[in-house]
Structure formats: C-alpha cells, structure tokens
C-alpha cells in the first residue's frame, strides 16, 4: 500500500517536473511546479514529517509559487517567450543522466545511519509541531535567528532593487 502511494507521488512529482522544464508556457510551468511541491508534501507525510509537509504546501506552494505566478502575470510574459536552448538541450540531458549514475550508485548503497541507529516506525511525536518547535527554539536557535536576518536582507534587497523612480539624483 505504502509503495503504491510512494510510486504515485513519485510519478506525479517526476512527471510534473519533467513537464515543467519542457513546458513553454510559464504559467503552466508554475502550476506544474506546484504539482511537484504538493506531491513532495505527500511524500513528506509518508515520512512522518507532517509539519514540513504543511510548510511545504503553505509556504512553498502557497506563497513562493504564487509569487512566481504574480511576477509572470505582472510582466505579462506571452506564451511563446522563453523556450529552450536547442543545442544545449541534448547536452544537458546527457549530462544529467551521466551525473545521475554516480549519484544513484552512491545513494543506492545507503545502508542506514552512520552514527544514529535507524528507527523503526514513528517515535512519539516525531515530526510533529511540538518537537519541531522545541528544536527550533533550543538547538537551532541560532540558525533561526540567522534566517530572520536573511529574510530581512531579502526584503530590503527586493525593495532596493525594484524601487521605481530611482532617478539619478546626482547634481
């Protein structure tokens, strides 16, 4: 049963992502990426990562991808604009396949954790909000703070970059 779920999500994710990089219409691309996000969220659920799954949908698919959509609409990108590199396309695919081989070989041989023992089934509260919250405020206090700074910078940066009417004030 689980396997079918997995295969389903995996199929949707891969198919959507392949479609995404082949699709010429940017809007469809965004929608396909959202599909990918959602199927990944499904996989997260299967991995007992409820919190992350929700974040994935709410923040990623919900907020970030909407931002994409928004910009595409804003710029009013026509259907056919964009497209692909013709010569580079086969090269890129070959490269990706070539790259996949060693990476796949690497992860295929994965036996289990190195230091921590593998855990069967779900621990109490594993992946739940409480545990995540605790970690965020204890162990990962510093990264979270940095992430905050990062977001601040991003906001400032986005504002600086897109601020209109920055006419040269040089006298």
């Amino acid at each position, binding site marked *: 049963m689980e396997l079918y779920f997995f295969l389903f999500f995996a199929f949707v994710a891969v198919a959507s992502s392949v479609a995404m990089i082949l699709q010429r219409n940017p809007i469809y691309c965004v929608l396909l990426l959202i599909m990918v996000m959602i199927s990944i969220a499904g996989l997260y659920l299967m991995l007992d990562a409820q919190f992350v799954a929700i974040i994935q949908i709410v923040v990623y698919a919900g907020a970030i991808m909407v931002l994409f959509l928004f910009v595409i609409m804003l710029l009013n990108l026509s259907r056919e604009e964009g497209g692909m590199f013709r010569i580079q396309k086969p090269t890129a695919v070959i490269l990706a396949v070539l790259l996949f081989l*060693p*990476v796949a*070989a*690497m*992860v295929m*041989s*994965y*036996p289990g*954790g*190195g*230091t*921590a023992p593998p855990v069967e089934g779900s621990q109490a509260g594993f992946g739940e909000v*409480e545990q995540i919250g*605790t970690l965020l*405020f*204890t*162990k*990962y*206090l*510093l*990264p979270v703070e*940095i*992430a905050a*700074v*990062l977001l*601040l*910078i*991003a906001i*400032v*940066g986005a*504002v*600086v*970059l897109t*601020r209109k009417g*920055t006419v*040269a*004030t*040089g006298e």
Partner: protein
Amino acid sequence: MNMVLPEINLYAVMPQIFLVSSATVVLIVGLFERFRRAIPYLSLVLLAISGVVAVNQLGQDPIAFSDTSPMMVSDDFSLVATLIFIAGAMLTVLISVSYAEARSIGRGEYYALLIYAVSGMSMMAAGTDLFSFFLGLEVLSISLYVLIGFEQREAGSNEGALKYFLLGAFASGFILYGMALLYGASGSTEYEVIAHTLAGERSDAVNLLLLGGLGLLLVGIGFKISMVPFHAWTPDVYQGAPTPVAAFLSTGSKAAGFVVLIRLLDSVFSGLQVDWIPLISVLAVLTIAVGNVVALVQSNLKRLLAYSSIAHAGYMLLPFMSNSQDGSASIIFYLIVYTAMNLGAFGVLAVLTARGSTCATLDDLAGLGSRHPLLAAIMAVVMFSLAGIPPTAGFMAKFYLFSAVVTGGYIELAVIGLLFSGVSLYYYLRIVIWMYMRPAARESADATGRLSYSGMTALCVSALAILAVGVFPSGLLQLAQRAVMTLP
C-alpha cells in the same frame, strides 16, 4: 511539555551580533535623508567597533555558542577571518563614498547590505555546522546579489547581478544536496560529528556519501572562490558590478570561501585527503593556468583583475595539499595581503571611474603617471605586489604560500605555480607600462577630476600596508599562524 533551554553563550557570536546590529542601524539611519552624507562614516565607525569586539576576543580559548549544539564558535580563526572581512569592508566603504555618491547609489541600504554581507562572511567563518555555514553563505550571497545589481540604471550591473544570482543559487543547490548527503552519512551536519564519523570505522557506502557530499560542497565553494571550472561568472560579474562592489566581491566573498574551505578540508575532511588532494591539485593548477593565460589577453581592467583574482585563487588552493598548519596559515596570510592588494587595484579603478564610465580599459590608464602621480604610484605598488615582487607584501605572501607547498612535498606544484606567476607579470606590468610609459591616447573625462579624499585615504592605507607588510611581515605572519592553531 517542558522545554530545556540550552546554555547559550552570546559571547561566542558577539562579533556577528555587532555586525548585524551595525547593519541594521545603518539601514535605519539611512532612511533619514539628512544623515545621508554621514552614513559611510557611521558605517566605518560601526565596523571599527565590531572589529574592536573581535580583537578583544582574540587569544582566548574557543567559545562555542552552546554546549549541546555549537553551531558557531568564536576562536582565533574565525576572529582573524572576521577581522580580515571587516578591514576589507572598511576599505570598500572608503572607496565607495565618491563612487556611490556620483552614481546615486550611496544610500543607507548600500552600506547596510555591505555590512550584512560581512556578517554573513563572519558567520561562515565562525560556523561549525554546515547549516550555519550555509545560512551565512546565503546572507552573504543575497547581500551581494543586491549590491551587484545596485546600479539599477546600468544594464551591466543588472546583468551581472542576475548572472551571479542564477549561478549562485544553482551552486547553493549543489551545496545543499551535498549537505544532504553528508547528513545522511553522519546523521548530523555538525563538523565535529562529520569529523568523528570520518575518524571512526565506516562502511564503504558511508564513505561514498561523505565523498559525494564533499565533492558537491567543493562545487559550491569552488563557485564562491571562482575555482576553475566554476569560475565562468567571475569576469562578467566583476565587470558588471559597481567597482567597489567588485572589489568587495573579489576579496571578502572569496576570502570567506577560503576560510570555510580551510575549516572543511584541513580539519573536517582531513581524513579524506588522499581522495581530494589530487583533485584539488589538478583544479588548482587549472585555475592558475586559466586565470593567468586569459588575463594576458584582456584589455578591460575589471575583467583583467577578475582573471587575476581567479589565478590568485589558484595559488591559494595549493597549500591545501600540504595539509599542515603552515599551509592553512599561509592561506590566511595570503588572504590578508590579497585583500589589501585587490582592494587597492579595484579601488584605483573606482576612484578613477567614479565620474566617468564604468568601462576602464588599459588605454584609459595611459599617461596616468603624469596625470595623477600618487594614484599611479599606488597602482604600481599594487601591481608589483600582485605580481609578487619584493619588497611588497605580495612577495611575502607568495613566499610563505609556496614554502608551505614545498614543505608539503609538492615541489612540482610550486614550480608550476611560480612559473605561471611569472606569466602573470606580463599583464600586471602592462598596466604599469601604460601608466608610465605611454602618453595619454585621448583626453579622458576624468583627466582633471579631483580624486575623492576618502578613496585616496583607503588606497594610501592599502599601499602602505602592502609595503609595510612586505618589509615587516612578522606580526601578521604570527597572527595567521595563531589563527590556525585553534583549528582542530
């Protein structure tokens, strides 16, 4: 549910806190138009304060942020690195003043982002966990994306920013995937744990994951330090970026990359050195070769300096092979010197092109020796230093660096590096020739322009530092050596 708050030690992240706060203060003050002119100086003061904080902590035992999960540590290594970044940033601020003013980018955000970037670098240096490194990297990168694109009206600036952004994000993806593999191999992203995994018994599969993770990390960091073949962005971005930003990019961001690389290769992954030494040595030689050879045929100064910086990255990669404290120290020392040199070189361009075009070619330098003798003299000192001619610091740095390589038993690498550095002389000296031995081809726009005091101050400081370190390198050498002592 009781939550046990960990023992945290803010002292460990004091420099970073100061830097972030400084940046924020600058950001806020920058909102007020009336303080506009004071902002660079405010930034300077704040950076200096952060620097003092860092200096204050020098020489103490390493302090971790918290006992359970260190995340960041305040040791001599990170402090020295932070000081390099701060010094670089201060010089950048100085050379930015007139440039930014003339191009109306001199707002609070500019300086704030600069300081944010420094804080990011500092986090990278201090990070003892892949995630603090990654987040620091992102803080740095995102600040830089904005800084490079700061001249919104300049197509080049925008193009450069976009290129840097796309490739930077791409590289981040590789880093992240590498981190995932490392996490899978050792169950944690802490350096200590990874090192522990490496030190203990490990299965082939884990070993593979570690290697793969390291390889992907190298791709990402290689991008930051513009190691061949991850260097392609460098010339374009340097050329497009506002000149002071390019200076900062070529020094600070590269230095940050190297600092992280020292931590990773020399302490965390030293167990895998049989695997990465041949790789790094080939890439280093390639980097040196490509940087120097292409720089030979450049006439745009910023691109030329970009390739030169690629070449220097190659030199700095060499001591990793020796995998000794001297090797790491020599990189730190080289970074210090390199920061002064490259800021000087770009600084001259920034000062020169503050009013004029962004495009400074060799021909623009013709006759500089008689137009602006001091500026030309500084440029000459910098060029000789980059070329590694005594009595400049560049020579000392190269000497120490190559002695570390030789001591590591890689004489042939040292010889290759040295020979290519001989090739590099051609283009460095061409600049000097153009300045002193060619009459001005055409009347440049800036021919009569007054040079900004702040810029000249920065340049004089770097030139004097180059000469002083060239003659009395002891202090800095000891500093560099002390910095790497604390590395495990």
